[in-house]
């Protein structure tokens, strides 16, 4: 599977504003699509933070999911916005 990774953070504070791992559609959906997505999202998240919680949020207009990565304790409630971003609060 092919993934698009976007990572945004503030240069002055180091605060991570967005870490998003998105599946790039290639046509047929693999049977283990979700498991692979979770695994890759966890791998990317572990680069910047240990034990990051990963939330999957679904864009109503797209078939592929996006992994939302959160800090432990931040909570897992996904927003209902149409364009969702994955935000990782960082200290």
């Amino acid at each position, binding site marked *: *599977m*092919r*993934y*698009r*990774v*976007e*990572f*945004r*953070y*503030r*240069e*002055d*504070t*180091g*605060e*991570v*504003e967005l870490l998003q791992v998105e599946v*790039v559609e290639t046509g047929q959906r693999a049977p283990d699509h979700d498991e*692979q997505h979770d*695994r*890759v999202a966890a*791998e*990317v*998240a*572990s*680069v*910047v*933070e*240990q*034990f990051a919680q990963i939330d999957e949020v679904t864009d109503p207009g797209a078939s592929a999911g996006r992994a939302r990565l959160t800090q432990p304790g931040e909570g897992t409630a996904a927003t209902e916005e149409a364009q969702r971003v994955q935000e990782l609060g960082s*200290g």
Partner: protein
Amino acid sequence: MCNPRRVQVRAARRLAEAWDQEVRRQVTLHGQAVGRASVRENLAGTVGRPVLACMDRVLDELDGWQATDDGYRHDVDGGYVMFRTDTYELEIVAEQTSQVRGEGEAATTVRAAVDDDLEAEGTGRYYDDEWGGFTERRARQAAEAEAQRALDQAAADRIAAARELADAGAGDEVRAAAERQAQEALARAVAAREEQLTSIAADRLAAVGVAGRAVANQALARMTQEAILTYARSRHAEGVRMSSSGGVLSIQFEMEA
């Protein structure tokens, strides 16, 4: 008037004196008192290992960071920030310093003595025709006076030398005692001052923490950037793009996995 004549007088004196002499030394030692208050954060429990693995490489190149035995240090107003590379701890330290001094004084009494035979000469001039009042009698008196002055000077020199010798003989021991006193006084002064400085440092820790956290966060941001790019390379990522806008750095790439 004819050629002047000379009268030479040789004088001798037995110099035998002994006296008690005080040997005193004062020592002042200067030192520095330091009071610290600190807070530590264990990064190993939260920050990703790849980010921490970039610590040395990034901090070696970032301005203001100095490598130490324990890690990397960056001074800020009123203290410093420390990344400990052995434990991956971030430590912010408020530090107050002050110069202090300790004084010590010691004395002892030593016996000094001189025992010497002194000799000196004096010379006087006169004229056979006593021209100008330069009589032989007057010349002899002048020669004797000169010889006595020379003896007085020699005696004073001998006594001064004996004093110096006695002083030097006991000086090292007396100085060592004075130094011990000064060291004790300095230790007391340092301890007393450090108690005050530690209290001041604790009061300032919050303010130092703000500045220190800002410096540390900037460094962590660079480590994170480096870790993300290293990861992208390891995954043979394509289309790696990095842009900065409004103080926000964005990194994007695509990869197969």
